[in-house]
Structure formats: structure tokens, C-alpha cells
């Protein structure tokens, strides 16, 4: 019992520390990659190759004046960013990042929690992330924030649907909601081969779910100034960004877990494979940000409901038919 608790605590600490570290350096990676895609350099003054930039950013944001706008609903205003961060970080718990290893006679799974409703848990937690946006946007008492919040909640609800449905094909093949079992089922063939349409829908919905270009309507700076986070400053602002990048990390890991065989791969250790695959996805996220313009709100909703939603239903149907034919 004690060993179990200890292992759990150590896993939680290690995973979340690593996650925060990766998130910090994702910001640097994004700025660097974007920079090179846009004929500029990105940060390169703080430390060698700008490697200390995330730390400098963190320190700067920490010492910024923390402004709470007048007439804001203080409690909700303060609560909102933490809701965002917590939901983003906690959802990583069910992502397996390696094979189980034996340490001092204890079998340790390389996943914080292997629950048999793993995927549903992930969906549930990520659906809670909307509260962070809605509460923040509403409590700021700013019309731009409110518009951003309304947009975000509508967007999140719509795209969560197709995100959830796109996964069902994978679940049908595996017959389990456990992420560990899903990874295990891909030891021969990655599910992206069986589920190309599902993967495509997942990818698009994932980008929308993370509110990234071309779906970054919730904070689109050109229309809504900064959307729901217009009035936020200092560490609360940083928390929103932390949550955003953590969300990208989680979604990328999820894509790897569901469609690209998780941590499995030849020669290299599982963790390395996992990270390589995840970072390819993160790169992809940055790449589309550099390439695409932004959708309009109504187009986004139409796309979600009239294209992605029927397609994901179709995908489920095709999967079902093929499975019953092959047996």
C-alpha cells in the first residue's frame, strides 16, 4: 500500500514537472520555428540560442503588475485561469508514455493512472476547460472578453463532439477505453492506417479544441483584441498561456497514443519515441499557425456541424461495416 502511494506520488511529481518544463520550452520552440518560417530569427539573445528565454519570460510575467479590473467579479476572475491550468495538466494523467518497468521489484506503469475509462476521463476533463474561458471572459466585465468567451464556449462544445466521435473508430477496433490497451493494440499496425478519416477529423478537431490558428477565434487579436484574456495580466495571463500550451501537449500526446502507436518504436527507448512523435505533432501545430488565415466564426460553426460531424458519423458507420464484414 505504501509503495503504491509512493509510486503514485513520485509519478505525479515527475510527470507534471516534466510537463511544465516541456510547456515552457514549447513556447521557445514555437517562437523559434515561427521565426524561421517567417524569415526572422526568433529569440536568440537570452542565453545560447535563446535557451533561457522561457525563464526570462516567466520572471518577467511574475513581476508584472497584477491588475484586477474594476467591476470584475473578483472570485471568478481569479479562479478562471487556475481552472484552465488544472484541467489541462490533469488530463495528461491517462497518457501512457512508456512500457511498464520493474523498479526494486515493483512493476511501474509508465502512465500516471491506467483507468479503464481513460479516454472518457480525458474528454470529461477537457470539456471542463471551457469553464476557464467562459468564467474569465465573463468576469472581466469587458465586451471583447465576453464575445471571446461566447465564441469559445460555442466552439469548444461543437468541436468536442466531433473530437469524441472521431475517436470512436479506434475504440471499436480496440474494444477498450483504456489508453494503455489502445497503445498495446497498435504493436503491429498503427491505427492511423485503419482510421485515416478518423485521424483527419481528430486532427482538425484537435486544432480547434486547442484554439489554434486557423481556429483561434477565442482570442483572435485582430477582432477581439485578445478575446477572453484581454483584461488579464501578470501571472494570470501567464497561466492562460501555460494552459494553452499544456493543452497542445496533451492533444498531441493523445494523437500519438490513439493513432501513432504511442511509445512504441524500434531501437530507441519508448520515452524517446514518445517524445519524438509528440514533438512532430507540436511542430505541425506551429506549422499550420504560420500558414493559414483564420476562419470566420460562422464558417467555423458550419464546418464543425455540417462537415466534421457527419463525417465522423460516417467514419463510425464505415468502421462498423468493415468490422462486421471482416469479423
Amino acid at each position: 500500500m505504501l509503495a503504491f502511494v509512493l509510486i503514485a506520488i513520485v509519478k505525479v511529481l515527475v510527470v507534471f514537472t516534466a510537463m511544465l518544463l516541456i510547456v515552457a520550452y514549447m513556447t521557445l520552440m514555437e517562437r523559434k520555428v515561427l521565426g524561421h518560417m517567417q524569415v526572422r530569427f526568433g529569440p536568440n539573445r537570452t542565453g545560447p540560442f535563446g535557451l533561457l528565454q522561457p525563464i526570462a519570460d516567466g520572471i518577467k510575467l511574475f513581476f508584472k503588475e497584477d491588475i484586477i479590473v474594476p467591476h470584475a467579479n473578483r472570485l471568478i476572475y481569479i479562479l478562471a485561469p487556475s481552472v484552465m491550468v488544472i484541467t489541462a495538466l490533469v488530463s495528461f494523467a491517462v497518457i501512457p508514455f512508456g512500457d511498464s518497468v520493474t523498479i526494486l521489484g515493483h512493476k511501474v506503469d509508465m502512465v500516471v493512472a491506467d483507468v479503464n475509462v481513460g479516454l472518457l476521463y480525458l474528454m470529461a476533463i477537457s470539456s471542463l476547460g471551457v469553464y476557464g474561458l467562459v468564467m474569465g471572459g465573463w468576469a472581466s466585465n469587458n465586451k471583447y472578453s465576453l464575445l471571446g468567451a461566447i465564441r469559445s464556449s460555442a466552439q469548444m462544445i461543437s468541436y468536442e463532439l466531433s473530437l469524441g466521435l472521431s475517436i470512436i473508430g479506434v475504440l471499436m477496433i480496440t474494444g477498450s477505453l483504456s489508453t494503455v490497451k489502445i497503445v498495446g493494440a497498435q504493436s503491429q499496425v498503427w491505427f492511423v492506417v485503419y482510421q485515416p478519416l478518423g485521424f483527419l477529423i481528430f486532427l482538425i478537431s484537435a486544432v480547434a479544441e486547442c484554439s489554434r490558428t486557423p481556429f483561434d477565434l477565442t482570442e483572435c487579436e485582430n477582432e477581439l483584441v485578445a478575446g477572453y484574456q484581454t483584461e488579464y495580466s501578470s501571472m494570470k495571463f501567464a497561466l492562460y498561456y501555460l494552459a494553452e500550451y499544456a493543452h497542445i501537449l496533451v492533444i498531441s500526446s493523445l494523437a500519438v497514443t490513439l493513432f501513432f502507436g504511442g511509445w512504441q518504436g524500434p531501437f530507441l527507448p519508448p520515452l524517446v519515441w514518445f517524445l519524438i512523435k509528440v514533438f512532430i505533432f507540436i511542430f505541425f501545430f506551429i506549422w499550420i499557425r504560420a500558414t493559414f488565415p483564420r476562419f470566420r466564426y460562422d464558417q467555423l460553426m458550419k464546418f464543425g456541424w455540417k462537415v466534421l460531424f457527419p463525417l465522423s458519423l460516417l467514419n463510425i458507420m464505415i468502421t462498423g461495416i468493415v468490422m462486421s464484414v471482416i469479423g
Partner: protein
Amino acid sequence: MAKTDTMIINMGPQHPSTHGVLRVILELDGEVVVKATPDIGFLHRGLEKLAESKTYHQCITLTDRLDYVAGMTNNLAYVLAVEKLIGIEAPPRAQAIRVLLSELQRIASHLFWLGTHAHDIGAMTPLFYALRERDEILFMFEMVCGSRLTPSYFRVGGLAQDLPEEFEAKCREFIRTFPSHVDEYETLLTRNKIWMRRTQGVGAISGEEAINWGLSGPILRASNVNWDLRKAMPYCGYESYDFIVPTGKNGDVYDRYLVRLVEMRQSNEIIRQVLDRMPGGKVLVDDPRVVYPPKAKVQESIEAMIHHFHIASEGFPVPRGEVYASIESPKGELGFYLLSDGSNKPFRFRVRPPSFINLSALSTMVEGRLIADVVAIIGSIDIVLAEVDR
């Protein structure tokens, strides 16, 4: 069925995509704009009044500050008006160089528009690409007159000085590579489905309506009205250059985008033609009324020195009369109306700013559309608030 309230939102004057200090008071029903009221004047500096206390020569520097992304063309419109009033014409070489620099300025202005407009619609990267080429042009301007944004290079009767020697090589290099750069922007945007969806059918205005609003420039031509002052009322010898005036069909944001892109390519062609047949000779008219005597003469004859002092301190008197001269600036018809009482300062100095008049059609274009379209439409009009407010 349910009764809904509208929400008033103040877009600007501090807003990332109103291109300066434009304030639009939007009445929104959900995200749909019910009513849009532009509120201008945050950048009013009284340039037109200020000009009345400056000599004709000094006014050139004021015109730079109108449309600050296209300083050269502002200078050109103004000096053309003064020249028309006096009744002189710049020598052929000066005319050719004016065309050359105006077309470079047109490219620079369109590039800046392209970058910011694309960024408004959410495409981040074209901005950096466009500014890279714009910077090349600004370097050339710096080479020519020592200034990047506010050249004040054109003079009444010609130019401040001749082009530097190394200019031609640099300019040729630029026009050689520039078309491929336009292709780059086009790969990012023109056939991009999202871009097309965001711009096609948005802010459409018919040709007739556009004329009634007094629109000019690319925004008018996008509405399928073939009206370009360079063709319709040529100045500076535009009639001798071979170029086409692109027109759009629907007059929407997408057509404005296409028109401007073709214009950039055409400007590039004009520049090539100018460089190929650049006439020699002087760059200032030989008219002692408005032009400084040559420096060598000033140093040896007292009359020339007094003459120099006279023009430098008091400027030159301009015959009594009124004049309107206009050019096709990157944004549309830029005109100067001058009323002279025979003294050395304009009695009345009035600008016809294309941005201001094009902006007036904003309300009709955005009403009934979404808030995201407002940003796209403001961007497509290509306004510079310094020119709107003056």
C-alpha cells in the same frame, strides 16, 4: 421570435486592426453588425491650415505626413499641382524618375497593405514576407534621398538631386526578383480555401455604388470600373508606358486583393520600362523663378547669391489662381487643390485624400455582416489614418 438587445462595442481608437486610430462604433446583434459609425479625427493635425503659413517649398514636407506609407506619391501630387499653377513642367529625366519612384512607392504601399490585411484575417506569415521586400524599396529610397518614410525628394520643377549611380543596379536586381516574391504571397493566399472563404463576397460593392460613393483606386477598380488616372488623365508621361489596369468583377475583398496583386506586378513592369529608356539630361527645370541657381554660380556672383537667398528665405511667389491636380496614388485619387493669392504661400491648401473618401463607404459595406468581416473590410479599403484625419 425572442426580443434581443443589441450591444454597442467601441472598436478603436485603440484596437489592433483599425490601422491606426480609427474608431468604429459598432452596434451588434450577436456578432452581426447592425450599424457601424466610423468616428475619425484622432490624428487630426491641421495640416491643411498649417500649410497656409508655409511657403510652397516648405509644404512638400507636410505632404509626406499625409499617407506615410506612400510619401513619394504625396510629394508628386503636390508638386504637380504647384507646377500646374505656375505653368512649368519638369524635364523628361525628372519625369521618368518620378514615375519610377512613384511605382516603387506603389509597390511598397501595396506590400504594407498586403501584410497587414493578411494579418488582420489571421495569416501571420505574409506580413513578414511583404515587409522584407518593402524594406528593399525603403533602402532604395534611403539611397536616393537619405530618408525611408518621408522622402520629400520631389521639388517644384523637378527633383532635389539626380539618382545615385548605384541605384540602377539595385533597382534592376529588385525588379528581377520581385515577381517571384509575389508568387510566394500568392501561394500562401490566393487559392487558399480559408482565405477565399473569408474574402469572397465580403464587403461587395457594385460599380455604380462605388462611383456614387466617390471611391477611387484599387477598391473602385475591383468593382469592375476601369478608372485609373494614369490612363484616364496621364501625368508625368504615363501615356508612354505599356501597362494594363486590372479590374475585378464583384467588388469584394477578394477582388481588391487580386487587383492590388496585379497592380504590383504591373508597377514592376513600368519600373522596368522606365529603367530601360531612362532619358538623360537635367532633373530640374531651367526656370530661375522657382529653382535655385547652380551652387558654383552662387559662389562667384553676388546676383546669384541674392537670388539663392531670396528663394531660400522667402520661397517663390506663385501667380494668382486656383488649381486642382490629382494623381493615382496607391490608395486612389490623391488630389491637391491650391488657391493662390499671388504670394509665396498658398492661400488655401486642400487635399482630396483617397483614404477618407474610400472610408466613407465603410458603413454600407459592413452593415449586416459579422464582426470578423468588419476587420477584413477595413483592411481591404487600405486606409491610413494620417491621411483620413490630416
